[in-house]
């Protein structure tokens, strides 16, 4: 009797052993979540960002923004497949500190290829959606005046020469990840990159005709809010998906992301209410974007209090940054890409070192706070310098070869008619 019960007991124990005995094999839950996250992040670009940006420009340019977002999504996808993925995540051999190589046209990636606990195709796709949205973010800087062909060429070259290398440094086994640089979901890779490129582009291309005296208000705030709402929802895929697993890390990333979004919104709203007497809907959604962009690098490392602090700081800092760039420096970064994504990305990347510490409610730092802060600073500066310089060169080259900007008459008439022979609205 004792032996029978012992056998029953042991059998029961064996069957209750956790199934994750084998480490680097396919996990269905992880795969399902990252498949879903891929959908969410693509949704951020199409139509989230597309709507957000298109509502912000004047009616005569609404289609040009939609066209640029859509075309960049298509183009970035192909570039990623052909060469981008390998440059970012491949093995660069002797140059692997700086750039990857291989996997051209997805060679070597088959049904059975695995990346961590998910199929490599899924990892490839998830990362592709990041490679799509980053160049799409930049178009806000030169909205309403850049030629479509120049936008396309710029996006391709920028993806290959700026995005892929920086992505490799941080996530692809490059020198920043070797240093212990912490960027959970793309503070440097996406937001600092896009923000700095935007600032450089706005300066190189020049201000819109009539800026800043002429009124150029958003033509459709409803589209802006719709787009912004989609960004919030999609960002859960962006940050929580960057856990690359369905579990507690994703859960905490989702929580801190959401708290930061809400806090950033309210902080910006408060700033406007105090300074202007009235809170605006453009303000509250921009605060949301600031909160989300700033928490991005920290999202997998900080706790809820860190999320709250980062969100509140993001709302306030990015609010003042926006005022300074447009009204102080009079740089026409038309849709405020640098003050929101660039400044937010820098702030969040640095604050990661602070709020990841257990003393600040974070999930723990491997280094000391001050040494991690130094590492973060190095990564921030490296990204700014590489992105800034290469973006400048690409733009100057394109300007010389094909010309970047439409002429004054074309700019006045509107890009939709001039570049696309279409009207956004036939009322």
């Amino acid at each position: 009797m004792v032996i029978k019960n012992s056998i029953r007991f042991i059998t029961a124990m064996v069957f209750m052993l956790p199934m994750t005995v084998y480490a680097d094999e396919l996990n269905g839950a992880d795969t399902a979540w990252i498949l879903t996250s891929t959908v969410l992040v693509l949704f951020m670009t199409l139509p989230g960002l597309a709507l957000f940006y298109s509502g912000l420009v004047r009616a005569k340019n609404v289609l040009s923004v939609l066209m640029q977002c859509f075309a960049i999504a298509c183009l970035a996808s192909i570039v990623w497949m052909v060469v981008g993925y390998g440059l970012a995540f491949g093995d660069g051999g002797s140059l692997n500190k700086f750039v990857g190589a291989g996997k051209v046209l997805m060679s070597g990636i088959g049904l059975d290829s695995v990346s961590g606990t998910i199929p490599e195709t899924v990892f490839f796709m998830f990362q592709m959606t990041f490679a799509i949205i980053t160049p799409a973010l930049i178009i806000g800087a030169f909205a309403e005046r850049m030629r479509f062909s120049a936008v396309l060429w710029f996006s391709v070259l920028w993806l290959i020469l700026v995005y892929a290398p920086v992505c490799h440094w941080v996530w692809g086994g490059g020198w920043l990840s070797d240093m212990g640089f912490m960027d959970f979901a793309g503070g440097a890779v996406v937001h600092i990159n896009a923000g700095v490129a935007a600032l450089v582009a706005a300066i190189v291309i020049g201000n819109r005709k009539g800026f800043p005296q002429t009124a150029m208000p958003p033509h459709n705030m409803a589209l802006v809010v719709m787009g912004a709402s989609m960004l919030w929802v999609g960002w859960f895929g962006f940050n929580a998906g960057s856990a690359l697993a369905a579990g507690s890390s994703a859960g905490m990333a989702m929580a801190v992301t959401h708290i930061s979004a809400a806090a950033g919104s309210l902080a910006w709203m408060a700033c406007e209410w105090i300074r202007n007497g009235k809170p605006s809907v453009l303000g509250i959604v921009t605060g949301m974007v600031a909160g989300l962009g700033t928490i991005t690098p920290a999202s997998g490392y900080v706790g809820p209090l860190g999320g709250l602090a980062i969100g509140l700081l993001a709302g306030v800092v990015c609010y003042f940054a926006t005022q300074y760039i447009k009204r102080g420096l009079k740089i026409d970064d038309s849709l405020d890409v640098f003050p929101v994504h660039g400044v937010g990305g820098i702030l969040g990347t640095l604050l990661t070192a602070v709020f990841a510490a257990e003393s600040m409610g974070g999930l723990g730092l491997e280094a000391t706070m001050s040494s991690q802060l130094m590492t973060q600073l190095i990564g921030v500066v490296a990204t700014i310098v590489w992105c800034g310089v290469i973006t400048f060169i690409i733009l100057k080259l394109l300007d010389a070869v094909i010309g970047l900007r439409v002429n004054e008459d074309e700019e006045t008439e509107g890009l939709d008619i001039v570049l696309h022979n279409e009207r956004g609205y036939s009322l």
Partner: protein
Amino acid sequence: MKMVAAVIKPFKLDDVREALSAIGVQGLTVTEVKGFGRQKGHTELYRGAEYVVDFLPKVKIEVAIDDDATDSVIEAITNAAGTGKIGDGKIFVSNLEQIVRIRTGETGSEAI
């Protein structure tokens, strides 16, 4: 014959239309216009970019009337469109040379 044009505040359109109807004015033409006289515009603020919007939306009503109806039409419009605040608008009366009803070919007072 006179052409009476009145630029009024948009939300007063229904009141003016009823008032004119009450004194027997049958048809009118309405256009949406922008303008300002002494009424100040407003400011809009988008992420720190401040715009002063000078032009205010108004509605312009045009009616063709007989000369002897002029005073009652002016009175009707004034009473219906007035709020007592700056921006109520103006009435312009000009001479009308000729009117033709397209369907029947009637001219002059018959066509009013």
